[in-house]
């Protein structure tokens, strides 16, 4: 009898199961994805290296040690006793210091490009899908038209045009100052970095716009959108409060995969000589600079090549992990 009484006396609070927020569920699933977790650790390490570059680098980026060309890994500078962890390049600049500062530029370019292109893509895709009709037709045909153009030659032409004519696109000083502080560059070099971001993002939003439009077409059919309208919500409200938050999962995945793409795209532009120019180091132009002695000294291209490879691989794995974690069909 007393046992029965106890059951009856249980309060609601005691038998409530701890409920997880969707964020906790996603994190739990993501942690199960080993490769993605490893990639996350690697990316975090690389980010920390580039973030603390000013403290970690023992040489100035543009500091030339005359005569100390092509020094091997771990060589010691005779005058000051500082170590060239990764040796020096063809004009005697410290390879390690340049590499971590280069990472700072390359990753910032990739991150900002993703941020701009995904935001643009999401908003344009949402508007296109939500309003439909003629507007949708015009926007989507434009996106498709842009996608049919091979992007690399176009990127090359546009970036060379923009970089050559300083006054073609005026960039506000505040933008230059902010980005200059992030990438630790002077305004003139920042300007070329910002231009590269604009060029990359200018072509990058197309895919996410299509993705977002597809998502919105799906979400639009759901009852909660009609319910929101019946409660007096405006179109703008519905787009920002109902469409975009519900479409976030695939957008996050495409953004993380996009990061990998931008790291490579920036490197490709730089490698072909149309990106940010020497003496500002980026992984792409460091790689490009080694072209002539690639065969004799194979470690020189490998040093900047490896972080490009590792970053793009890691971003891809993180993207995979996020996709699995965010996919509601894979209930674990």
């Amino acid at each position: 009898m007393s046992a029965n009484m106890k059951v009856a006396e249980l309060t609601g609070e005691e038998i409530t199961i701890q409920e997880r927020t969707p964020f906790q569920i996603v994190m739990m699933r993501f942690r199960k994805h080993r490769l993605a977790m490893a990639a996350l650790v690697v990316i975090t390490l690389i980010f920390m290296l580039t973030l603390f570059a000013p403290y970690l680098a023992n040489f100035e980026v543009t500091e030339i040690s005359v005569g100390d060309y092509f020094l091997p890994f771990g060589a010691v500078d005779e005058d000051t006793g500082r170590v060239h962890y990764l040796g020096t390049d063809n004009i005697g600049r410290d390879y390690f210091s340049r590499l971590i500062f280069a990472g700072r530029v390359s990753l910032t370019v990739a991150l900002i490009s993703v941020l701009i292109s995904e935001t643009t893509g999401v908003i344009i895709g949402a508007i296109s899908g939500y309003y439909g009709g003629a507007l949708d037709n015009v926007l989507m045909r434009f996106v498709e038209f842009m996608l049919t153009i091979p992007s690399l030659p176009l990127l090359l032409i546009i970036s060379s045009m923009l970089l050559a004519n300083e006054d073609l696109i005026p960039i506000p000083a505040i933008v230059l100052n902010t980005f200059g502080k992030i990438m630790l560059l002077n305004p003139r070099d920042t300007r070329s970095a910002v231009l590269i971001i604009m060029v990359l993002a200018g072509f990058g939003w197309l895919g996410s716009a299509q993705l977002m439009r597809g998502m919105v077409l799906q979400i639009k059919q759901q009852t909660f959108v009609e319910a929101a309208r019946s409660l007096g919500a405006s179109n703008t409200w519905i787009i920002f409060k109902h469409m975009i938050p519900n479409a976030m999962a695939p957008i996050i995945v495409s953004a993380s995969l996009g990061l990998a793409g931008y790291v490579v795209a920036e490197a490709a532009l730089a490698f072909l000589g149309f990106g940010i120019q020497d003496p500002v180091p980026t992984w792409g132009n460091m790689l490009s600079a080694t072209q002539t002695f690639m065969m004799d000294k194979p470690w020189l291209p490998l040093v900047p090549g490896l972080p490009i490879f590792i970053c793009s691989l890691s971003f891809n794995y993180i993207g995979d992990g996020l996709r699995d974690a965010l996919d509601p069909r894979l209930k674990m």
Partner: protein
Amino acid sequence: MADNNKKPLLEIRNLKTYFYTEDGVVKAVDGVDLEVYPGEVLGLVGESGCGKSVTSLAIMRLISKPGKIVDGEIIFDGRDLVKLGEPELMKIRGNRISMIFQQPQSALNPVFRVADQIGEVLEVHQSLGKRAGDARAIELLKLVGMPDAESRAKSFPHELSGGQAQRVMIAMGLACVPDMLIADEPTTALDVTIQAQILNLIRDMREKFGSSVILITHDLGVIAEMAERVAVMYAGEIVEQADVIPLFQKPIHPYTKGLIGSIPVLGRVRDQLDVIPGSVPNLVNLPPGCRFAPRCQARKEYNLSICTEKRPALHDFEPGHKVRCWLYQDDEQHVAPLKAKKTAKEKK
């Protein structure tokens, strides 16, 4: 019981809502007249596809392409909703008229917490901030009888049961104390026991807030329990309209009779339930006369030819009891009692 001297809160006159599809014009609502008086519960009954939901969406002006309100007036509190622009409508929706949907689970946005969704209504209409909105949301949840309201407010829709989700919907609908609540099959997706709770809640809330309720359902049991006045819809038009007791005790339209006859009665074992033969006519190709004529047993019994030729009008059979049927009306649309017709037929 409705007091007919009172001014109606909502007056629908000759509402026509058509859907322009590739197969032709679907006349989902074709000439509906309806009044809702302040504080009353009006039941709108009919089979699936008879235009009940379209009528309610038309009141909210939520008919979207390819649908269109072709004709008619929806006068709410002195203003014709059909003529209002979108900004004015947004001020009315959720604030003066709100709506509860059939599938409460899918009518809530899956990515937001319950409190945020209730707060949304308050933010839209009363520019209430986040904190004030949350506090009011918890208050409303308590009001609609949500157990453990504080912690439920932090739940996501998928963590709620159907009944709880419907309570949240009702809380959202009532957040701004609307003059009218449209409940579109509010209990269809719920268990029977939960159904009763939700119906009780709607009734309590009506008493507390004094809002009128349009209760849309195909369940006559729900109507009998809740409504004060009933309108029966068939193929886009209202065929009979009366107070609830006369309608159930003395239905006069053959369709209403059929509907009531097809309800299983507890404790009364029958080999077969009465069914209405045939099915709802195609709303693209409607019969020229009475829309119920092809399925009407009474028509065959009395051998009326006018039923398939001319559309009957909705007329008063008795004060407060309207019907759209030739059995109770002659060619000049005067009231002609059934008895007279029967004797006329016998003389032949």
